[in-house]
């Protein structure tokens, strides 16, 4: 648990990239914003000259692996990584062992997050018992638990049964929940190893066709609209998916969607190395898809960036491609990748980055106290980012337990300097507190 509970005066930060001001953080809230604020007694001054201040980031899609795979990540190690990435709230996915399909498991995860104290950990509940896709888990009990679960997902596995999906969408309406679908038609992707296309054909790896994602998204959008419920689409990865979601939104479907940082920058030709660090589900797609995803995120078709942070131990990746685990870590590099792919390209302003990475995910997940404006009276959840401090990503230097980052060696344009969770610094001077 971070020590300093005191008062902090942030000097000269640029809120959402605007002109520099000072921000005073007291008792967990922002109490003053303005130029040249006086230093209160006992306040710690944080020099933020040149740094951009954003509301603390909110991740709607994080795998913390606990319980079950504590060798890959724990709630504590994962939330430290989150803090290092500028996050003040994360959603812990349900595919743990045991699966987070009961109030007991989600409360355990929630409590582990509270104890660690680096960010708010909001458990995601499983849609179906054991992620088996057969019957609904006790969604209501999880919603009413201390963890106040609002996001339900079988992530990693698609709720492919159309009737079950309909029921789930309907059921969560009772407590304003949302079903976050991992859109993957299972029969079309049996044994799939990578994006189906020129590269998979050349490499002799079974393909994961775009249509397997798009068909489910189309179906779910129609279902959600039919029953008047909220649908969230996890890790959209194809141009066709962006088109379908755009179409669904136009016809009034209450659908939201996320894109991961890796799908905003990496393409399937990286698989030519057969290095499983690039193995992920959904798979890396083509440059055309990457461009469509960036445009979709820019025009709001895709609402948010979510990391799908998926830690794996070394042995799960130091193997043949086909036996390697799917997934890559992303909490600590997300903001840098978004800066590089969306801000440097002129597709998003910092104001919009705050929306896509904080406000919108908090809204979708119904996370109170996060994703708020940087304004007096609001909770002091803030990240300070240096946009002019390029870093070479070092897999060995990650704060989480696993180093399976596909960005290793890549140069990212900036770095997180400080993260405040309700006024308490979880990261200062680029180091975990």
């Amino acid at each position, binding site marked *: 648990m971070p020590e300093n509970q005191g008062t902090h005066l942030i000097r000269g930060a640029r809120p959402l990239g605007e002109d520099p001001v000072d921000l005073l953080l007291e008792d967990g809230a922002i109490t003053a914003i303005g130029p040249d604020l006086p230093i209160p007694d006992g306040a710690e001054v944080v020099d933020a000259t040149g740094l951009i201040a954003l509301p603390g980031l909110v991740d709607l899609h994080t795998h913390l692996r606990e319980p079950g795979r504590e060798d890959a990540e724990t709630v504590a190690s994962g939330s430290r990584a989150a803090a290092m990435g500028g996050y003040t709230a994360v959603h812990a996915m349900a595919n743990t062992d045991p699966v987070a399909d009961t109030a007991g498991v989600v409360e355990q995860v929630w409590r582990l997050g509270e104890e660690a104290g680096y960010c708010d950990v909001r458990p995601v509940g499983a849609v179906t018992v054991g992620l088996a896709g057969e019957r609904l888990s006790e969604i209501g009990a999880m919603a009413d638990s201390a963890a106040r679960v609002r996001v339900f997902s079988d992530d990693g596995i698609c709720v492919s049964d159309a009737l079950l999906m309909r029921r789930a969408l309907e059921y969560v309406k009772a407590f304003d929940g949302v079903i976050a679908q991992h859109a993957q038609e299972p029969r079309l992707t049996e044994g799939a190893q990578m994006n189906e296309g020129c590269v998979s*054909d050349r*490499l002799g790896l079974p393909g994961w066709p775009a249509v397997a994602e798009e068909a489910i998204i189309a179906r779910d959008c129609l279902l959600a609209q039919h029953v008047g419920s909220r649908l969230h689409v996890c890790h959209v990865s194809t141009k066709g998916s962006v088109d379908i979601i755009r179409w669904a939104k136009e016809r009034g479907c209450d659908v939201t969607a996320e894109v991961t940082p890796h799908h905003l920058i990496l393409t399937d030709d990286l698989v030519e190395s057969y290095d499983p660090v690039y193995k992920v589900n959904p798979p890396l797609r083509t440059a055309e898809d990457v461009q469509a995803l960036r445009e979709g995120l820019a025009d709001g078709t895709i609402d948010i960036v979510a990391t799908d942070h998926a830690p794996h131990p070394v042995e799960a990746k130091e193997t043949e491609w086909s036996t390697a685990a799917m997934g890559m870590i992303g909490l600590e590099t997300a903001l840098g990748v978004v800066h590089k792919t969306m801000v440097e390209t002129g597709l998003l302003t910092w104001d919009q980055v705050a929306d896509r990475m904080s406000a919108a995910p908090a809204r979708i997940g119904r996370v109170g106290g996060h994703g708020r404006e940087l304004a007096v009276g609001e909770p002091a959840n803030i990240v300070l980012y240096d946009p002019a401090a390029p870093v070479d990503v070092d897999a060995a230097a990650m704060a989480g337990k696993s180093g399976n980052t596909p960005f290793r060696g890549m140069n990212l344009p900036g770095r997180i300097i400080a993260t405040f969770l309700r006024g308490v610094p979880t990261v200062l001077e680029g180091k975990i507190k």
Partner: protein
Amino acid sequence: MRHLLSAGDLSRDEATLILDTAGELAQVGDRSVKKLPTLRGRTVVNLFYEDSTRTRTSFELAAKRLSADVINFSAKGSSVSKGESLKDTALTLQAMGADGVVIRHSASGAPHRLANWIDGSVLNAGDGTHEHPTQALLDAFTMRARLGRLEGLRVAVVGDILHSRVARSNVLLLTTLGAHVTVVAPPTLMPVSVHTWPCQVSYHLDEVLPESDVVMMLRVQAERMHDSFFPSVREYSRNYGLDRERLNRMPGDAIVMHPGPMVRGMEISAEVADSPRCTVTEQVANGVSLRMAVLYLLLGGS
């Protein structure tokens, strides 16, 4: 080049050098002493994760004819079957001082991974549904020996293109060497992006046969039927099997090739398999010379 991982990595000069070298080394099989001292003191490991007596034996004989020490490391009954990872196996081989590792693996790309972990040369002896470069080289060698050239040769590769490592390597290599390849299969057994491959695509064997100098038949596993790649063995055989009647529609000097093992009655009739125009046994014999050439060129120098 330190490794032979993909036929696509070979330039035309390199591929030609391998074929020419194999041509010289073919004589060794006819001599009283069928052995050369070239790789004396070098260690070649045959690391076979899939059963393939034919390919393993061919590599073993090739290495022994070059006087290399040969170790057969098969997945069955070894540490591999006890769950040892490929990386740990690689480190073991490295510690044993393997100069070359010949690897057959069911996972596409396994040889690429292995090449990251050991200092010696890695020879891909077939990886999953990816490639089988020495098979393509020996096929090219056989075509050149039979027909005198590769440039401009019209080669039809018929069968399960989607899952065939032989097809992938042959399309890449033969194109590099100036031949014109047509892949022939039902659309379900074609890769989805096959139209971007450097070859022609046909769904109709009968249209391709009269225009082919070489027809290479690939093995089709009957199990594919259960995954609905085709309705029945009978229907596949009727449309894509090579029988006497179809053989007669090929140009007079055209040859029939098969990487083996053949499924008689499925993709090839017994009559065609036994015909003098079928080069199956030559392919096997050429395989040894060709693999000697590759081993020499990878391991013989500094």
